[in-house]
């Protein structure tokens, strides 16, 4: 059924469903379980589809808009049917899910139809809250800079942006739009418009917002008087078109002058040169929208411009720094030449040219606002503005920015009085056509370098990076991770996150392209290949290599032509299809409902399709657990499994899961023939896995366990410790409440390889958040080491694996069974990070069949 048709009948269905309430629990048991199984199957298909869509972000795949549309439809269709299944199991109980579905589905359809749901933007936004998608609202220049500050974490000026929404409000409030929309914007009309803008007044809302923002900055500045640089940030400025020097900007302005300067900056959008530029580039007048950035003045000791690839000496492949004393304006405008340093693009960035010029004057901020030229003291005139260490620091920062934007960059920077570099602006250098010369002999260059491996593993983030190999084995290796190196690691551990922005590339032995690490790599756009199987074994520390995460190849040596070739391509991340799938995934993939014991775990709290899926899965299992097998005369009686470990487990056989001899209310493990169940039990009962040593729980943990329990709706006596397995010959669904953990295993194993899967979910536990997240990390790393695809959100861990042959699936189920037993009380133990490592080793030894020591 098509989605839109589906929507029209939803209300009718809801009405019909509410009638079913009266017949609650009349559903025959067999139907109930068939529905449950169907629900689980859909659950898995949804997770698969979401993961498959997520994979497309890595850049390995070629896909088009049709793919995005049909994937959304598929997921939407499945989620809808999933809700229907839950309604069959618990008629009328979760009807609000349809509203959640309708809301999310509508948002996705709007995105696909090209009508992105943008909330009307605030008039003033502080830099630190600007997100990647706000380009339209804050203008190109500020959007770029905000990414440098907020994503890459490099120092940028403090301040706020007066948004394009504010610009439009101003133009409407003062009734200037009509003049702008005139057929031809002549010089005379332009002058008139500038006059109207200068006389215009700010809409009251904007005035208030502006006042609030400057007050906040003043508070941060303390006793010293606040001065701001007021700079243009128009639509498309610095990204698609440069508009270089078309608009006005003002340095070191006192707050009292802010409104006047603001009007002058937006007025400069109608200067003759700006109008002419637009006419030449085919930009319509009503496409003009001016954001204005207000940055706290930086009292720069040195300022300058850095090109990460010097256009003047392209064939030398160096970066160039121009630097002067004081503020940078005279250098940017070309009034004074400044020092010129050429640096190698590769670490350690040797100086390849040093041209120190005599610097007679410098621009400085005036005490009462504005700027003034001062003469440079004699001893500084011929001194280089930057020393070697400073050049190196600046070079490393610049390459972090270049790697992220995937184009050579033109960067304005300042060195403040505390010796900190601050990025003032960055934009791509337009070298596309000239770059072609650098890559003309690409094929030959590629053939000159031996391939270390090819087609191993999965691309998590596309791109090309070259550098020296650094193999990271523990936390210590990360402290001095050199900028620009290639990070090589066995696992894709979340703790590697802190070095990711410094790496030119990442290779791991295991891991999945949807894991946490891959998400971080994408955040910083660092070329990453995971799951190579052998990177740590075949690469030597210090070896210079090139990671081509476009074609999934690792070369020996630095294939610089490949790196440059990448500059000539339109970055995949900038393509319409990439942005589209990213936007719809925001409504599909994020998991916000983590903990069933929290207040937001409701249909109304569902903000994505993943949330709905998770909610339905949780509730379906809960409904089954609530069936009260003993008290009610059900047609599929539960049997108690006799186990050598203290685990009360009820088992329901849907068919073929138990030996036919298994009659009565109790069964022996040996009578279990369900393939996944049998393997899980074997793993659970493996020697040493079920730890019997008593755990000392400290007082804090104990208290936190109490509060968690009592606030929980699931803590009713009949529910605690209720463990249930539903099995058939090929299937198992196991729900466990071990201590305070919630653990679900769901698996299907048959001879049909494509149908096989295993799903593992773990949540909760006594003790503080830190220990719980350590345990989550441990679980994630153990699961990844066993080839599971792992997702970690807080202390929720989800591992999935599929399409292995029966023998290997059985092996995985044994591992999962062992993990269940092994991690039962682990969070209590997890007092330090070191504990994670040693525990991991212990599990490895036990899993390999080593018999545990007895103390």
């Amino acid at each position, binding site marked *: 059924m098509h989605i839109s048709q589906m929507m029209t009948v939803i209300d009718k269905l809801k009405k019909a469903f509410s009638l079913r309430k009266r017949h609650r629990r009349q559903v025959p048991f067999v139907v109930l379980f068939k529905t449950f199984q169907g629900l689980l199957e859909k659950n898995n298909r949804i997770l698969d589809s979401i993961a498959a869509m997520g994979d497309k972000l890595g850049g390995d*795949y070629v896909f*088009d808009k049709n793919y995005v549309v*049909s994937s959304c439809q598929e997921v939407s269709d499945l989620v809808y049917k999933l809700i229907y299944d839950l309604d069959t199991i618990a008629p009328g109980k979760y009807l609000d899910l349809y509203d959640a579905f309708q809301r999310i589905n509508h948002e996705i359809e709007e995105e696909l139809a090209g009508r992105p749901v943008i909330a009307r933007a605030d008039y003033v936004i502080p830099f630190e809250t600007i997100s990647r998608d706000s380009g339209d609202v804050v203008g190109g220049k500020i959007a770029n800079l905000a990414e440098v500050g907020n994503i890459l974490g490099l120092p940028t000026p403090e301040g706020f942006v007066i948004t394009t929404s504010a610009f439009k409000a101003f133009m409407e409030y003062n009734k200037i739009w009509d003049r702008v929309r005139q057929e031809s914007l002549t010089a005379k009309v332009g002058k008139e418009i500038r006059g109207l803008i200068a006389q215009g007044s700010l809409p009251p809302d904007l005035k208030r917002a502006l006042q609030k923002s400057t007050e906040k900055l003043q508070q941060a500045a303390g006793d010293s008087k606040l001065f701001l640089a007021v700079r243009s940030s128009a639509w498309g400025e610095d990204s698609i078109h440069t508009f270089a020097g078309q608009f006005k900007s003002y340095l070191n302005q006192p707050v009292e002058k802010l409104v006047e300067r603001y009007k002058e900056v937006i007025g400069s959008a109608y200067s003759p040169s700006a109008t002419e530029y637009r006419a030449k580039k085919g930009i319509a007048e009503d496409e003009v929208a001016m954001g204005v950035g207000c940055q706290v003045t930086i009292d720069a000791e040195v300022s300058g411009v850095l090109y990460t690839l010097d256009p003047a000496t392209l064939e030398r492949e160096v970066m160039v720094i121009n630097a002067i004393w004081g503020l940078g304006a005279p250098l940017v405008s070309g009034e004074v030449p400044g020092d010129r340093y050429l640096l190698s693009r590769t670490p350690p960035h040797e100086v390849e040219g040093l041209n120190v010029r005599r610097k007679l004057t410098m621009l400085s901020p005036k005490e009462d606002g504005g700027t003034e030229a001062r003469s440079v003291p004699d001893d500084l005139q011929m001194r280089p503005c930057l020393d070697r260490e400073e050049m190196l620091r600046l070079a490393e920062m610049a390459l972090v920015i270049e790697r992220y934007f995937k184009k050579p960059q033109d960067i304005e920077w300042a060195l403040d009085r505390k010796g900190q570099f601050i990025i003032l602006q960055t934009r791509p250098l337009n070298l596309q056509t000239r770059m072609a010369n650098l890559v003309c002999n690409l094929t030959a260059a590629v053939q000159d370098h031996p391939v270390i491996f090819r*087609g191993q593993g999965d691309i998590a983030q596309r791109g090309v990076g070259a550098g020296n190999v650094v193999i990271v084995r523990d936390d210590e290796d990360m402290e001095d991770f050199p900028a620009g190196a290639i990070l090589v690691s066995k696992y894709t551990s979340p703790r590697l996150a802190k070095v990711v922005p410094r790496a030119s590339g990442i290779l791991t032995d295991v891991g999945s392209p949807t894991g946490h690490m891959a998400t971080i790599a994408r955040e910083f756009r660092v070329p990453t290949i995971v799951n190579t199987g052998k990177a740590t074994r075949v690469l030597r520390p210090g070896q210079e290599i090139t990671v081509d995460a*476009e*074609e999934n190849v690792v070369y020996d040596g630095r294939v610089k032509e490949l790196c440059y070739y990448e500059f000539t391509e339109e970055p995949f991340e900038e*393509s319409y299809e990439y942005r589209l799938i990213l936007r719809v995934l925001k409504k599909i993939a994020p998991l916000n409902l983590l903990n069933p014991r929290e207040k937001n775990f409701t249909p109304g709290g569902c903000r994505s399709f993943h949330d709905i899926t998770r909610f339905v899965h949780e509730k379906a299992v809960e409904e089954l657990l609530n069936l009260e097998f003993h008290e009610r005369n059900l047609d599929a009686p539960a049997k108690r499994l006799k186990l050598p470990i203290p685990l009360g487990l009820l088992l329901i056989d849907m068919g073929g899961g138990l030996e036919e001899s298994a009659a009565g209310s109790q069964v022996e493990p040996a009578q279990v023939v369900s393939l996944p169940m049998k393997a899980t039990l074997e793993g659970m009962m493996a020697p040493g896995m079920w730890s019997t040593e008593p755990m000392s729980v400290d007082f804090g943990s104990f208290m936190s366990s109490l509060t968690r329990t009592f606030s929980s709706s699931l803590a009713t006596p009949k529910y605690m410790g209720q463990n249930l397995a539903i099995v058939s010959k090929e299937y198992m669904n196991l729900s466990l409440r071990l201590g305070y953990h919630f653990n679900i295993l769901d698996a299907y194993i048959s001879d049909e390889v494509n149908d096989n899967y295993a799903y593992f979910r773990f949540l909760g536990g006594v003790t503080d958040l830190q220990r719980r997240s350590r345990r989550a990390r441990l679980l994630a790393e153990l699961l990844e080491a066993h080839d599971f695809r792992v997702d970690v959100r807080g202390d929720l861990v989800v591992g999935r694996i599929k399409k292995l042959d029966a023998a290997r699936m059985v092996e995985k189920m044994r591992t999962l069974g062992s993990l269940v037993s092994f991690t039962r009380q682990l969070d209590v133990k997890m007092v330090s990070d070191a504990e994670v490592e040693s525990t991991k080793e212990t599990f490895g030894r036990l899993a390999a069949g080593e018999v545990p020591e007895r103390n």
Partner: protein
Amino acid sequence: MSDDRKTQVLILDDEPIVWKRLKPALEKAGYEVEAFTQSSNAMRRVQEKEFDIVVTDLKMEGIDGMQFLTEVKTLSPKTEVIVITGFATMETAKESLQKGVFDFVAKPFKRGELLEIVKKAEAKVRQ
């Protein structure tokens, strides 16, 4: 065909993203690539020039992929055609294979996969 000449590849897909992502991958692998979004333009081009390998979508506005590949095979039977499509059915797969198509790839696909197929097609052309 002499070995010093680069293998000539034509890509036709009405979604520019498809050839934008394919062209660089093929160029890096040493192929000379021309890409088209309009099937009529691609049709004109194959009438002017013989390509070794043609990669085409099936479902497009105007001249559809099936028509295009039929024409290519008539003009130059040696040219190997690789079909890429987002709407793969058994029927279209069968029909295109009957027309002598080298391979049939469902979208979305990995760039590496397509590159492998192009290499195999190249080996066949160069036999």
